[in-house]
């Protein structure tokens, strides 16, 4: 529970905090949802099991961030996850993108290279963010960051292993990985962004400034690219828009209608 009296919170601080929490929660929630679509369809049975644990962890983290929002009076955790419209979501667009053409039950042409690159790059950024949030001026968030951080070592090890191995695995894999890296970089700016309230977030000590976090990400990722003799791209784009501003794609609309289908049968009922 929050020790800070939310009624005494400065309005600018509160809106920056709320916005940051929506970013953290929505990022993890939608990526875990994409992970849940992969369940049963990974390239290898053993990997399917490992990947699902990561998706569960990630959805668990989303749930913790939504709980902080509930504590701030934003509404119930499950309503926050299931009933908010796309324009109210703050996740980065990269994380809402489909796993590939097709549907998770019908002819899914899911792209494992995209899964590896998107997850690896995102988890590395999430780790940097959690490290920064450990010193957040909002104590309940700092506590959650410490806990979330615990599980990210495994996520990182997992995705980095896949990334490095597939990057070194020869022609076809390399082509697919390069294509995935390009796609991810095209929208990775959206992951790095803290949105329009970034100034207030960093000024009030909620999290370090975007530029610093971005530099940290580059600093950890460059040696990984160096180790496999690849030069790291530097164009962090927002090709499909900035999710932090509520800009989203059709991919999110479709995802939201699927993930809230049963919830919407009767949002007031106990399920």
């Amino acid at each position, binding site marked *: 529970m929050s020790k800070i009296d939310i009624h005494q919170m400065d309005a600018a601080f509160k809106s920056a905090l709320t916005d940051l929490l929506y970013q953290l929660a929505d990022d993890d929630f939608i990526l875990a949802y994409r992970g849940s679509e992969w369940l049963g369809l990974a390239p*290898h*049975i*053993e*990997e399917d*099991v*490992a990947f*699902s*644990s990561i998706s569960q962890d990630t959805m668990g983290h989303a749930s913790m961030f939504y709980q902080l929002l509930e504590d701030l009076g934003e509404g119930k955790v499950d309503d926050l996850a299931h009933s908010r419209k796309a324009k109210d979501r703050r996740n980065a667009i990269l994380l809402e993108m489909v796993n590939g053409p097709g549907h998770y039950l019908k002819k899914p042409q899911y792209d494992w290279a995209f899964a590896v690159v998107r997850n690896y790059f995102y988890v590395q950024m999430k780790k940097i963010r959690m490290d920064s949030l450990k010193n957040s001026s909002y104590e309940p968030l700092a506590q959650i960051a410490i806990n979330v951080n615990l599980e990210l070592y*495994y996520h990182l*090890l*997992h995705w980095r*292993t*896949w990334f490095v*191995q597939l990057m070194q695995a020869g022609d076809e894999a390399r082509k697919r990985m390069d294509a995935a890296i390009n796609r991810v970089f095209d929208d990775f700016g959206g992951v790095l962004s803290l949105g329009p309230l970034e100034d207030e977030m960093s000024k009030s000590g909620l999290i370090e400034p975007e530029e610093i976090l971005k530099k940290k990400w580059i600093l950890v990722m460059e040696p990984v690219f160096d180790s496999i003799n690849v030069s790291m791209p530097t164009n962090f784009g927002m090709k499909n828009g900035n999710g932090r501003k509520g800009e989203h794609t059709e991919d999110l609309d479709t995802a939201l209608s699927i993930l809230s289908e049963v919830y919407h049968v009767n949002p007031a009922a106990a399920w």
Partner: protein
Amino acid sequence: MSSEGFYQEFEVFSKRTVTSPIQYQFSLLAPNRDLALIMAQENFMRREPVADIWVVKRSEIRKLSPEEKQSLKRLDNKDYRNTKGYGYLRKKWRQYEQGILDEKEILSWGGVKKNEQD
């Protein structure tokens, strides 16, 4: 690099806590040991604590063949190797008004208090 295929057999071992012995879990298929390692924990220990994981390529393990397992049998005539063969000492020491230094007694000498042990 040799072409051995994607489905290599690895045996997975783990420790439950830092002080527990390493224990066999199960086998999995993986193309190499790094991938075997990152899949091992969630495949076999996703509901229990784990302090360490080993993966070993099955072909690197020299096992007994079913025939060789015959070599494990032995006669039950080796009480000279066990305290069982020296049980009469308890009575002897009693004559000298001393207690026997049995396993319980000797292992209590380590100075570790009961509640610090596993």
